[in-house]
């Protein structure tokens, strides 16, 4: 009987498709996440008066901190399905490469967090009467790069925290310090576009560098972390 070896992209695709399908079926996680995002926006609007002049200056920061909270909640349940019934063992025993699993999970998280961002953004625009004084189209690559920066490390550290006690708190504990340069870049780039005062170019370059560096490191080290029983 001929056996084809597992094609990495095939495995990534199959895993991603499975995750998306399962997310869609049990809408529990999505619904609670959506509601949580709405709550975050509302709470922020109460805490930081949208009518004040300064709001436009800090809106960039506000939006990204809100996205960060939503991302952490999403990331914490990345591996929940694989932990039930120890499905992760089935994956580890198979010849499927560890990196394919990582990429599938990271892409799944990216899509998930992106959906949340797409839902939270109009609310922020509404509450804070935001207008982009700079080139607004640049916000799209900034959002994409920023989200990937959070998600790629977040997925990795979520896997790391599987092997710890107090799993839910370990993830942000590990993620936040490492994400500081990315956060700085995201916030400043967004503020630059919103206020139109400065160029976001440097920040976009920094974000891209951050993403390249950490995506490579995550791919190199994930197998070790997955098998660290």
């Amino acid at each position: 009987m001929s056996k084809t070896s597992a094609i990495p992209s095939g495995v990534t695709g199959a895993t991603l498709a499975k995750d998306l399908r399962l997310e869609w079926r049990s809408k529990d996680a999505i619904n609670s996440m959506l509601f949580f995002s709405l709550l975050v926006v509302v709470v922020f609007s109460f805490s930081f008066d949208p009518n004040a002049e300064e709001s436009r200056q800090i809106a960039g920061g506000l939006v990204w901190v809100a996205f960060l909270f939503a991302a952490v909640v999403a990331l914490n349940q990345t591996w929940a399905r694989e932990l039930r019934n120890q499905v992760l063992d089935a994956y580890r025993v198979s010849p499927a490469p560890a990196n394919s699993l990582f990429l599938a999970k990271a892409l799944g998280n990216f899509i998930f967090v992106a959906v949340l961002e797409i839902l939270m953004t109009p609310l922020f625009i509404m509450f804070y009467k935001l207008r982009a004084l700079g080139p607004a189209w640049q916000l799209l690559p900034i959002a994409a790069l920023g989200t990937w920066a959070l998600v790629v490390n977040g997925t990795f550290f979520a896997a790391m925290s599987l092997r710890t006690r107090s799993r839910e708190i370990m993830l942000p504990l590990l993620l936040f310090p490492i994400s500081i340069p990315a956060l700085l870049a995201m916030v400043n780039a967004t503020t630059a576009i919103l206020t139109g005062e400065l160029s976001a170019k440097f920040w976009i370059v920094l974000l891209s560098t951050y993403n390249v560096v950490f995506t490579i490191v995550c791919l190199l080290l994930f197998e070790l972390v997955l098998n660290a029983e």
Partner: protein
Amino acid sequence: MTMRRLFPIFGLLTAVLLSYALYEALVAAPTEQTMGNVQRIFYYHVPSAWTAFLLFFINFVCSIQYLVRSNPVADKVTNWTVIAIAIAACVAAFVIHPLPQGMEPSSVATTGLAIAGLYFLIKKYFSRERVDALAVVSAEVGVVFCTVVLVTGPLWARPVWGIWWTWDVRLTSTLVLWLIYISYLMLRRFSTSGQTPVLAAALAVFGALDVPLVYFSIWIFRTQHPQPVIGGGGSIDPRMLQVLLINWLAFLCFAGLVCWSRYRLEILRRELEETQALEALLEPRSPR
């Protein structure tokens, strides 16, 4: 054991050196023109910073070694990379004109060689398990010294510049470094895996890659939003430099002392665990 004899001698030497350094810093060093006596905290703040950075760098080297030494191919590649870095540093020192402010050709070359020297020294004298013990030790002691930096910084800044904190490049990078290593120590403590060293080493690699990015990002941020810089740059009175270096030497000796005893403690703790495991191996277990 040599420990019994050398340790007290080294301890005494350190005590003498620290006292001398303290005297130099508080009494003998010239008073600074603008800041007055408060400036003397500088002799405490800066050497702590250098010591902390050195210790964290040792942790980084240990983490890399722990990760690559299990795989002969990766090990060879890393060896050659380290040598390449040293050579590149020497070449760059004399080829690149002009060097960024504050960097002398000799210091760049020396740093490159020192990095390679440190890497191979650690490789030679520490086995893979002990390299991990050294990683734990350097992280813990490094955090202590880093805390000193973060506490003395604001203590210095408040009377002199009127502010407790500023988001300047150095302070912020030091804060992030401190945060990363606190999370490193927490990971070590909370890990339930049998392969905690692997996880911790991976985190250290993340941290090491992150800090330059932090430094660079704050640097760009500061060029866009200038604010006061604590500590200032510029030239330093040669007598002050001398006191600074004496203090650094004293701090290094003290750090060495603490690391040494912590390391012995760690090695003993691991040996105890192994002995207990072996004992359990030989004893018959009670039937369940």
